[in-house]
């Protein structure tokens, strides 16, 4: 380049700098006007002021739809908190929270004891009560089939392979069952739904499933014909919808997708052997029994209680949080968000929970959860 063109460069630089300056001015002006506009309405009572912070959440795909309803509502009250959520499976939620990659890990399963041993400052805080439904794709069968834990265990062990198997027929005398092979779906990711479902199978078929497979967020699935592994509750529903004869365990927050895709769900046996549906009343009955037994840290499975009219597969949805946060401002924002989430006036009100068919925390548990939330520092 020769000297003669250099003034051009300088001129260009000046113009560019001027343009940049203008842009910055314009930007700050618009930012200022954006800041000035929204004034928080009345301070919500009982909820700490979060200040300004960024909170990240990953985990349970079952809780994910609720976060998506909760977060915008919470942010309407507190604009200064930015929150990212992701449905990754409970396994990832637990791991991410334990590693400190995220602030809140969502899980349908409580923390494994090994994790707590390694990280005594981790806690699992119940946020709401969820339900698991057993969905299936049987064209022409619109009735809720009666399925027992033993039958489900045999299906997932490949011992029952057709929908018109005598064991299923015996529990469903009024349904004409088609001769369609059963395709058992399970989760490929580490999943709280798998934890809940396998806990149920282990409880109801102690000698079979309980000793051979056991329960965890991922287990050794016995070989069954045509079995499929799917990622997330969404993957379970969409795979089941395109697979005639499928059976899948799905969180109730996916109920509307499930019904929209033409799937039906089963009635399971209550504590007295009667087949019951996951109605709010049946879920509340089951929850009432377990609430009394729940320890302050919320670590318990709500599976197959000896309750009349109690739907046997329900669970607490947990927030996995480290009580020792790196900064006081993050800790304050997490406390605020969780206080809001469990509050019967806000996050735990029917307005939000009914959209995903969850049940609110009973009063005793609310107190325990708040005590856990206040430990976050």
């Amino acid at each position, binding site marked *: 380049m020769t000297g003669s063109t250099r003034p051009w460069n300088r001129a260009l630089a000046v113009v560019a700098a001027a343009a940049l300056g203008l842009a910055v001015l314009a930007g700050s002006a618009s930012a200022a006007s954006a800041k000035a506009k929204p004034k928080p309405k009345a301070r919500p009572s009982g909820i700490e002021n979060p200040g300004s912070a960024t909170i990240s959440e990953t985990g349970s795909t079952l809780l994910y739809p609720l976060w998506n309803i909760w977060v915008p509502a919470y942010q309407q009250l507190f604009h200064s908190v930015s929150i990212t959520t992701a449905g990754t499976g409970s396994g990832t939620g637990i791991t991410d929270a334990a590693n400190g990659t995220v602030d809140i890990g969502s899980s349908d399963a409580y923390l494994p004891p090994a994790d707590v*041993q390694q990280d005594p400052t981790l806690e699992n805080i119940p946020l709401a009560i969820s339900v698991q439904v057993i969905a299936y794709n049987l064209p022409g069968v619109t009735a809720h089939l009666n399925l027992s834990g033993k039958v489900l265990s045999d299906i997932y062990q490949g011992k029952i392979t057709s929908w018109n198997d005598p064991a299923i027929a015996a529990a469903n005398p009024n349904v004409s069952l088609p001769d369609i092979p059963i395709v058992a779906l399970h989760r490929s990711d580490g999943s709280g739904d798998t934890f809940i479902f396998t806990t149920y199978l282990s409880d109801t078929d102690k000698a079979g499933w309980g000793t051979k497979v056991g329960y*965890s967020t991922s287990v*050794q699935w016995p070989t069954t014909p045509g079995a499929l592994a799917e990622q997330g509750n969404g993957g379970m529903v969409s795979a089941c919808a395109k697979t005639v004869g499928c059976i899948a365990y799905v969180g109730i927050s996916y109920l509307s997708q499930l019904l929209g895709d033409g799937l039906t769900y089963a009635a399971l046996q209550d504590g007295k052997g009667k087949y019951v549906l996951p109605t709010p009343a049946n879920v509340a009955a089951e929850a009432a029994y377990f609430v009394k037994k729940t320890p302050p840290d919320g670590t318990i499975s709500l599976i197959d209680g000896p309750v009349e009219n109690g739907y046997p597969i329900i669970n607490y949805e947990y927030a996995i949080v480290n009580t020792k946060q790196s900064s006081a401002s993050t800790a304050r924002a997490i406390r605020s968000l969780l206080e809001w989430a469990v509050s019967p006036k806000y996050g735990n009100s029917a307005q939000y929970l009914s959209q995903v068919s969850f049940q609110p925390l009973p009063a005793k548990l609310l107190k325990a959860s708040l005590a856990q939330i206040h430990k976050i520092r």
Partner: protein
Amino acid sequence: MDLAGTAPTGVSPVGARPARRPHLRRIRSLARAHEHHLWVAGGRAAALVPLVALALTMVVLAWKAWPAARVNGLHFLVASTWKPGSTYGAVTRTDGVAHPVGASYGAWPVIAGTLESSLIAIVIAVPVSIGAAFALTERLGGWLAGVLRTAIEILAGVPSVIIGLWGALTLGPLLANDVYPVIARNMPDLPALRFFKGPVGHGEGLATSGIVLALMIIPIIASTTRTLFAQVPALPKEGGEALGMTDWEVSRRITMPWVRAGIVGAAVLGLARALGETIAVAMVSGSLLNTVAPNLYGTMGTIAATLVTQLDSAFVDGTGFEVRTLAELAVVLVVVLLLVNTAARLIVRRAGGIAAPVGTGA
């Protein structure tokens, strides 16, 4: 733009920051004086990068995998259980390596799934690719060849996740509804052909994985083969025609022997891609860990797909044993790839380089 070099003196014409100029000039003149050495040294360093990267990857993998390999033993290669154990149970130790009670890993189903699906892919892809390459170089001329060539190149560039999505949503169900039942029904009922009969599933499984893999490696094999065909000199081919050979005879007796070794090499490139392909297979295989496909259409899993679907849940294992086992599985995949590569090299050597004698076997 070498400002310093063209400026008449060390003083800049506009007088901006004169103090920095001499240093810049000295560095530049130094660089110019040693240009050759810099070039060689830079080249050597660049050449070392892949080697170092490969070595580091292998060392880190082996380091991670070693404790798992000690606990899992050789049994790992032949056992069919993938059992993480309960992360809610107790932690136990074997040979000083911590793992959840009941953890027991066997990778045979996913090793078998990897080999089977890649075999299907190569069986489909090699003839199709040779046919396409042959058509491109010998049969089609002008714009049609250009269009086909571009199509193959574009297919090579389609991200595997997109092929996987299409395979899971469209191709799989289509095959399961309209193609597999026809094959399963019409296959003679002989014990040797049992593998082709039986339930055809719903679109995810071994056959669909193989076909999706074939689609992904056809561009690799076809474009390499096309280049090879184009390198065959015209003279022997014309000689063959002069002797009264048909087109078919010329391609079979002259063109093919000329490039045979190269085609084996191309097929190995494709095979390596198929063995290691991850996400597309994860989407159409059924992602199972414990199951060898009972027939051609059964659901299964592969090593690479297992790595991607299980890593998340492996982190839940607080002892880290499942992650170590996945590292061991990755080592198995690398070893399989090395074996395939070595075998291919031996085949190429036996087939004798590119310049096979004209008319061998004619």
